[in-house]
């Protein structure tokens, strides 16, 4: 089968790739670009562990074809640090104890980042609504909510 040429900016780096037309963005990130921060947990869009930002919008990368996002600007968890400094969300997740097994963490942080990018100081209710897009089996979400609140204040 013919491959498709795509150019994607991933964490501010341009990648020109020949991908399979039926390749998901999650596969491209993990298998081709070795960016394994986004996780495959359900593979069907029901959990959010694979969430990355595509042109600033949080998408489940397991439901997105790489061919669809040709030309897009993609941010993954690996691209959140700036000049060796953690993103406020990353700091807050650590400080508030919002991380346990860590498998949902990158998707959770990327989902929360999209919220903070459009709404600097979200209310608790808004945070709950947003992160109800993602499943965490470990924490009970309380410390995640606190972390997003805290990051909003930074």
């Amino acid at each position, binding site marked *: 089968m013919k491959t498709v040429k795509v150019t994607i900016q991933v964490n501010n780096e341009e990648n020109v790739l020949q991908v399979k037309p*039926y390749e998901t963005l999650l596969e491209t990130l993990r298998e081709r670009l070795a960016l394994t921060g986004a996780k495959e947990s359900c593979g069907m869009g029901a959990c959010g562990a694979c969430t990355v930002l595509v042109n600033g919008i949080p998408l489940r990368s397991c439901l997105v074809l790489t061919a669809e996002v040709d030309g897009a600007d993609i941010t993954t968890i690996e691209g959140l640090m700036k000049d060796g400094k953690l993103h406020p969300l990353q700091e807050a997740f650590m400080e508030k104890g919002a991380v346990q097994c860590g498998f949902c963490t990158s998707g959770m942080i990327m989902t929360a980042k999209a919220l903070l990018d459009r709404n600097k100081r979200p209310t608790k209710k808004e945070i709950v609504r947003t992160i109800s897009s993602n499943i965490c089996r470990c924490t009970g979400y309380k410390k995640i909510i606190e972390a997003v609140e805290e990051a909003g204040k930074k």
Partner: protein
Amino acid sequence: MILPQFEYHKVQSVAGAIALYRKYKGKARYCAGGTDLIPLLKQRLSAPAAVIDLKGIDELKTITRRKGVLIIGANVTLFDLKNDPIVREHFPALFQSLDATSCETLQMRGTIGGNILQDTRCIQYNKSLEWRTSRGFCFKMGGKACNVVLNAQACFSNYCSDNAPALITLSAKVRLKGLKGERTVDLEKIFSGNGKAPFTVEPGEVLTAILIPLKKTEGVYEKLRVRDSMDYPLVDAAVSMAGGKARVCIGGIGPAPRLYVIKNMDENTIRDTADKAYADAKPVANTTISAAYRKKMVSTLVKRAIKRVLKEGGR
């Protein structure tokens, strides 16, 4: 989980999409947000030779008002539509159904067109090929029986769009463009009532726009689900009211939403409508919750929705 092989095309126009569909002799699927289609492909419930991506068609992304009608491009995302001031102001039932759809992240990807044309669902259908092979193929998979109801003659899969029932209460129409030209039909008319092929949409037709008469309504959307996010409705009821008349629509049970029109809002009519909706509903054991309960909830939700509209106008 990897996808099966298919070719991918992004098109810039509806005509381009239709031309490609023709080229693939119908062995192609249109893709908007993909939140319904990609899981179907992953589970090998659909095996097209090509996926035709409609996201590049700019004309499908706009919301315009013309001659007392709100025209919503099919590719407007659920999230953008929810945040449109006209929707919030004029169509509270739709606002609430959009807000109750799946989760916020999927609202940002899913489109209103795709949401309307989502396939019907069944707990014995939305499974991997291995699971279904072990279980045996049902009607909807091209088999000869229903895996839920013994000796059934039809498919009882559920139509689970949150928004179609709300749109139906708003007397929405849909515009379809296909191999034979363009047509505009009442939304409630696109349902075949057959779970195996739930839409009367012609092969190759693209849903391009949803048209809603632009008048202020009062309305409510009631949805029963186990979790307050992510879940499809186990049963849902939308009500929109204007000028003392109301339209009630029930979804989540069986392959088509059902519309009830109330001309006079009095207690008897409300009760009759709830009774009628209850009698019409034929849920089967194809969700996580019992069928008898879902049936019972039809009248509960209808009464509750109407009560809320009368009390708070859906605000």
